């Protein structure tokens, strides 16, 4: 079974046979200002972002609002702590799932006493995680052009911490904000080289669906709320 690759050779053979005659290219990519017809130039056709960090941030904030991502600037870790405490009280949370990390570890000791942490370090009990009121993670990047938070299975405590609990809180630094997806992918490539985590996920707003009469409902399966707490660079 393990070695069973199915009809590999037959399919590849059919593909090669089929491709013997070239198909016309009906929509050749416009040449960019630089004159190169390369596909790498699509970046300039996408929605503009603005060059400065302020413009980037303004767009991210604007998109967050329309996506219903709750974005809050925090001056320091104490403010982050206080904010989480406030959310916990408002939501009457009992458990919060989190992972260790540069930005998260210092917060663990500051959690309010009635809130018990579920620390995902190695394995975890799925039912226990499912029952948590919130999930607290770091992220790799924030993307201005799309209002997205980029997490990976390395940066955000595995594959599901950022999507199973009903409220996802991300702690990040402003310096993690990149312009667009192109920059995001380049930055991931630099960071991980050939050892990509098994999952990269761009999260754009809380979980949503429009399946019923195309009317927007938040929290279809994953988080109903997504909060981004942003620290200075």
């Amino acid at each position, binding site marked *: *079974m393990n070695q069973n690759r*199915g*009809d*590999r050779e*037959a*399919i*590849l053979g*059919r*593909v090669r046979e*089929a*491709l013997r005659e*070239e*198909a*016309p290219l009906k*929509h*050749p990519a*416009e040449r960019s200002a630089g004159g190169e*017809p390369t*596909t*790498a*130039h*699509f970046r*300039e*056709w*996408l*929605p503009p972002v603005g060059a400065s960090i302020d413009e980037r941030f303004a767009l991210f904030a604007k998109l967050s609002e329309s996506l219903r991502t709750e974005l809050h600037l925090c001056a320091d870790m104490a403010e982050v702590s206080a904010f989480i405490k406030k959310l916990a009280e408002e939501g009457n949370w009992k458990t919060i799932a989190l992972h260790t990390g540069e930005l998260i570890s210092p917060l663990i000791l500051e959690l309010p006493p009635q809130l018990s942490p579920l620390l995902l370090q*190695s394995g975890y009990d799925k039912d226990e995680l*499912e029952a948590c009121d919130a999930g607290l993670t770091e992220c790799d990047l924030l993307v201005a052009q799309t209002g*997205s938070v980029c997490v990976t*299975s*390395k940066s955000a405590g*595995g594959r599901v911490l950022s*999507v199973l609990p009903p409220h996802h809180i991300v702690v990040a630094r402003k310096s993690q904000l990149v312009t667009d997806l*192109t920059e995001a*992918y*380049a930055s991931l*490539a630099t960071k991980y080289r050939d050892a*990509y*985590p*098994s*999952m*990269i*996920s*761009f999260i*754009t707003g809380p*979980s*949503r*669906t*429009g*399946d*019923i*009469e*195309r*009317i927007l*409902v938040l*929290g*279809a*399966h*994953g*988080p109903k709320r997504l909060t981004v707490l942003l620290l200075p660079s």
Partner: protein
Amino acid sequence: MSTIADLPRQQFQSDANRTANDAPRRAAVRRALSNYQTARDRTGATFTDWKSARASAATIKHEAVNHLDRYLEEFEQKFTARGGKVFWATDSKQARDYILNLAKEKGVRSIVKSKAMTGEEIHLNEALIKEGYAVVESDLGEYIQQLKGEPPYHFVFPCMHLRRDEISDLFHRELGTAKTDSPEELTMIARNVLRRAYVDADMGISGGNFIVADTGMISITENEGNARLTVGLPKIHVALIGIEKVVPCLADLALFLPMLATAGTGQHLTGYNSMYGGPRQPGEIDGPEEFHVVFLDNHRTRLLADPEQRDALHCIRCGACLNVCPIFKNIGGHTYGTTYQGPIGSVITPHFRGLEDWKHLSGASSLCGACTETCPVGIDIHHHLLHNRRNAAAQKPAAGEQLLWKAFSFLMKRPALYRLATKFAPLGGLLHPLVEGTAMDPVASWTATREFPAAPQGSFRERFRAHKAAKAELVKKGGVQ
């Protein structure tokens, strides 16, 4: 003529007749799509240059599809190096059998699925359920359709044709929940049922929007987070993907993800865009122990072998062509009788399932071209409908129709005869005897619902002749220069 061969066409005709007259359903579909149009226009307008972005997308897909062998191998090599397994399935049965055997071998009991049209294509659920597995669709729309026992109505919006009261009744009947007219409450009902399914499942089955060659990843686009959970919690992940879904580089997704979102739903980016490059890696705390990618050919290579229509394999299944299609809006998704509905379905189904049986879909189009205009990867959709019509006529001309067109061209090649004939009868009347009383009788077909224009006094050519003569007369009299 065999009855079997006529079945899809007959089903289409009779369903189309019924649905085109179902005013409330047509109104519901239009209502559901009206927000889409606004959102899509708004988001599209934020692009610096949508048309150029689209040309770039077409160019990248052209590169990928025209070097499919190379990119599939590159994916396989990268993916297996990280512990993934690739199975190449020629047809539905091979794909189903592989997944069934895997489930059996691993002692799987329950399976959670995220949206995969390839699953519909190979009738995977039926096969798994028949073997005794519990299979739950986790996408809300798919879940509703599964409960209803109906295939998806639209390959991106599976239950867009249903009103909230119908969904409420369905939940009430199947799940015993209280009736409600709130989409929010209905969504929460499904949420509660489905969260158990993820936790309990031993196998998660997904589709895949892109196969990324250079990093050996598959990319899944979704809004709900159900695919993230399907692929995150169970110990085995199977992704069933058509071989055409390739992009050469991970960085290409920086173009395709926004375009898919904009064209598909009018979002800047879909809620979750996730790339998976293998099962759980060393040092990771969760994720499946095994990750199997099943490459599905199932006649895609047949379409690949047609250079004229090869670009139909560029499709990223955004669904935009359905959303703008006036035929789709008026007859609905089920009428097509296909896995892939709408314009692109009408183009590719004849390649996948036989031209003779499915050519009627290419005929059932006014060729308005709204699909081609909207397609984010620039597929020549409506021209391919013409190509299918041509190929069908060449393969097996319909006797009566061929005779009609032969007569038509006989007449139109002979201007004198044409003039003489049109003098005595309006054009429609001329060829009418050929088809009178048949299903092709255009007069009966037209006048059943529409008036015919009143016959004018004299044809244009007669009036033009008179006009010229009068002018010449004037010139003779010196009235005009």
